[in-house]
């Protein structure tokens, strides 16, 4: 009986092994690792970066940014015209663009989408900020969209709102409960969502009728990874084709790996060290418990001068970053600001110490001046390491740091409640600098009840606010750039935060599977997390002979062999035992 069973098992195992994974006429697939969860496939609700990125592949926006230099280019609309008072914008949606189900895309779809957001509070969840200034959106005919705004708005060509098909969405009852998972999902982008298994993967098919032309491969798969470590490993093994957001060490580990090409790109992110400038509410009440000494701008400047930004970039970022200066990273070249030699604070602990002496904070008998607290996020490699350096630098000028690394939530809590002296923070910026600049205006501070604040640094400066208002209504780009730079200079001078570094986006791909990707911008740009879908859309498959998938199956063979050997041993043993039954107890 037992023997029979074992034999059966053995047969089953060998059968399992001999059946190879079916692989006839395999489509060309680009497999991309994502580390962040997908919160929703409904573009009105999806707020996670990962979801937005997939949304860009499914739905085109009204306008787009070129891969070359991120300038505005054709999206669904190919022409646009503001009125002289800058309050009315007219967009033209050309003929010939189609939804993935063949229905033509019209201006009415655009108007429908914006009006849905204007009327339905839930539809504003993700992208509401783009339409708050809208007064009215209409589509006088199938080709024309007219948007009237309440006040002149410079960001009218940066409306990052996915446009959805009216013929599908007008039937949706409650936006809140709509998961948008009727596969394939009707869209206008280069790819069509065809399958989503939460926590596992997302599959998109190439949109053969895409108006810019079909992508050069068949399917795009996003595969979920719990951490980037696993993703990097999978890339090294060839299980996936594209990974981003690598840690410097992981990036280094891929050096010289056959079949893998690394892409060190300029990132959209900057990391900053916030210095609590004496947080106040909009009504001027002090809140939080920031150290009072930091209200003195001379102290903030001295602290900033004592930080060796070059060393941080070299040791913590392992060189994969640019030294920080203004609020706009160099990837968005024209708005990026660098201090002139006169303005720049060069690293000089001695000068910093002298400045503190002069400001009235001499060293005490024990060599310290005043203690400060530093909050960072536990589990973020940068914070964990940079805090060590900062601790050292600050103690060199007589400021002992109490470093507390806390959870994401606790960090948010502290920064919102202004219960910090120094804190790590960071932002991802957009092509238009408006948002990142707005974070530092007085109006962003919380109300009298301490709630409703969206300020980053609790910065409130008249000069800065005046410049902010100016740039918002400046439609001459060159002059706007100039104002934006002035704002950054002011920010740099007042130091509510020290921009530590612009981190590189570290990406890697299987160049043996995909020969080339389109980066944005063309020079030193990123493949993933673009302001657009060029990276995925422009990927060109390499000439391959065979998919490398079979290599993984050796593992099964090994396991099967072990099982078979065990079964055989068991059978032999059982036989032997039966034979000797009489002599045994």
């Amino acid at each position, binding site marked *: 009986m037992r023997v029979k069973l074992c034999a059966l098992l053995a047969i089953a195992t060998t059968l399992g092994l001999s059946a190879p994974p079916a692989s006839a006429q395999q*489509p060309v697939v680009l*497999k991309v690792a994502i580390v962040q969860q997908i919160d*929703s496939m*409904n573009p009105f609700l999806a707020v*996670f970066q990962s979801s937005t990125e997939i949304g860009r592949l499914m739905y085109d926006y009204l306008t787009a940014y070129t891969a070359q230099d991120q300038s505005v280019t054709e999206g669904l609309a190919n022409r646009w015209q503001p009125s002289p008072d800058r309050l009315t914008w007219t967009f033209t949606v050309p003929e010939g663009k189609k939804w993935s189900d063949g229905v033509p895309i019209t201006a009415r779809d655009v108007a429908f989408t914006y009006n849905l957001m204007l009327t339905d509070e839930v539809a504003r969840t993700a992208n509401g900020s783009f339409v708050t200034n809208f007064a009215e959106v209409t589509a006088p005919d199938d080709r024309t969209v007219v948007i009237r705004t309440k006040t002149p708005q410079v960001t009218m060509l940066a409306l990052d709102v996915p446009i959805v098909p009216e013929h599908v969405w007008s039937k949706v009852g409650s936006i809140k409960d709509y998961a948008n998972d009727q596969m394939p999902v009707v869209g206008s982008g280069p790819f069509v969502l065809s399958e989503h298994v939460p926590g596992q993967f997302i599959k998109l098919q190439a949109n053969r009728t895409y108006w810019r032309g079909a992508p050069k491969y068949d399917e795009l798969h996003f595969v979920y990874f719990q951490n980037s470590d696993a993703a990097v490993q999978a890339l090294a093994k060839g299980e996936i084709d594209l990974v981003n957001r690598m840690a410097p060490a992981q990036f280094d580990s891929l050096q010289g790996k056959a079949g893998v090409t690394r892409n060190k790109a300029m990132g959209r992110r900057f990391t900053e060290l916030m210095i609590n400038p004496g947080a106040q509410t909009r009504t001027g009440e002090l809140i939080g418990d920031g150290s009072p000494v930091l209200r003195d701008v001379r102290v903030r400047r001295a602290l900033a001068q004592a930080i060796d930004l070059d060393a941080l970039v070299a040791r913590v970022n392992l060189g994969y970053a640019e030294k920080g200066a203004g609020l706009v990273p160099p990837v968005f070249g024209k708005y990026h600001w660098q201090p002139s030699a006169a303005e720049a604070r060069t690293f000089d602990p001695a000068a910093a110490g002298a400045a503190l002496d002069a400001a009235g904070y001499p060293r005490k008998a024990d060599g310290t001046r005043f203690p400060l607290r530093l909050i960072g996020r536990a589990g973020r490699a940068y914070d964990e390491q940079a805090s060590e350096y900062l601790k050292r630098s600050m103690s060199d000028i007589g400021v002992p740091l109490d470093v507390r690394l806390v959870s994401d939530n606790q960090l948010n*809590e502290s920064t919102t409640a202004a219960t910090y002296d120094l804190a790590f923070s960071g932002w991802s910026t957009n092509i238009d600098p408006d948002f990142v600049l707005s974070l530092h205006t007085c109006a962003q501070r919380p109300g009298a009840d301490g709630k409703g604040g969206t300020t980053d640094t609790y910065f409130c400066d008249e000069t800065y606010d005046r410049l902010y208002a100016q740039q918002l209504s400046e439609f001459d780009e060159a002059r706007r750039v100039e104002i934006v730079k002035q704002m950054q200079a002011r920010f740099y001078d007042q130091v509510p935060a020290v921009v530590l570094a612009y981190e590189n986006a570290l990406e890697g791909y299987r160049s043996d599977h995909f020969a080339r990707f389109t980066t944005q911008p063309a020079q030193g740009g990123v493949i993933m997390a673009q302001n657009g879908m060029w990276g995925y859309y422009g990927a060109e498959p390499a000439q391959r002979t065979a998919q490398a998938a079979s290599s993984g199956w050796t593992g099964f063979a090994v396991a099967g062999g072990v099982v078979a050997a065990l079964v055989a041993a068991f059978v032999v043993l059982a036989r032997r035992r039966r034979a000797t039954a009489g002599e045994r107890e």
Partner: protein
Amino acid sequence: MRLAGRFGGAALSLLMVAVLGFFLFRVVPGDPVVSMTRGRPSTAAMQAELRAQFGLDRPLHEQFWSYFTSLLQGDLGTSFTFRRPVSDVILERLGPTLLLVGTATLIAVLLGLWLGVRAAWRRDSVFDKVTTGVSLTLWAVPTFWLGMLLMMVTGDLFPSRGMRDTDTAPDFVSQALDVGHHLVLPSVTLVAVVCAEYALVMRSSLLEEMHAPYLTTARAKGLRDDLVRRRHAVPNAVLPAITLVFLRFGLVVAGAITTETVFSWPGLGLLFYDALTGPDYFLLQGLLVVTAGAVVVMNLLADLLHGVLDPRVKVV
């Protein structure tokens, strides 16, 4: 009477879990709305809207009451992150966890009990020493570390993540093989740790019975040694072990968190880990209620099963 008491106790436990879950996660610092909108253009008005949407602006006791009443109707609330009913999100992930934990438990039970019986029956033999030594060592091994080591050692032999490849042929055999292929490392990791415990428990349980007089009776009757073991000793000794297996099964579900984290296995453990960073209150509560509920139910099952297997225990 006793049965009613059992059910009542289980229900009370679940109720306490629900209450604890609610308040425990309300203490988690951080405003979920801030977390939700972080790094995105958002205005104070939008945040307030979101807060209202999720009922976060209401007083705590009202929130609790509405949470509680809908819980009684099986509604676990709506996940902040996924914008979908928590029960749906959890159900989605239940399958992979059950597959992993089920496979691992099955193997671990069979292997562990077998090893434990053999080791105890030949106490102090080489087999016993090796089994006990290995079991004790494995018991000391942190699960996640074992997983990482296995991953590093096996190199390219097994996939490093997830439950299946995205480009496997859709027919059943290929899919099953693919899942099996992915299942090897996580289940081996889980088996190694769980099996060790079962083996040790089974061993000590059988050792307890080794000197029982009824075994002498059985020997005196002329039974072969292995018959004495199989017919008399094991049926008695296996009872506590089976109870433990059931008790553990619930806990293993929770214990799979680290394994699932290491191997990106798309189950409840991974979901729990993700929910913590939100913090996704309702999801966390739901997960706590579900995992604790699993343990409660397993406890109950263990009790009932014990009553069936052991005639001395009467479940009326």
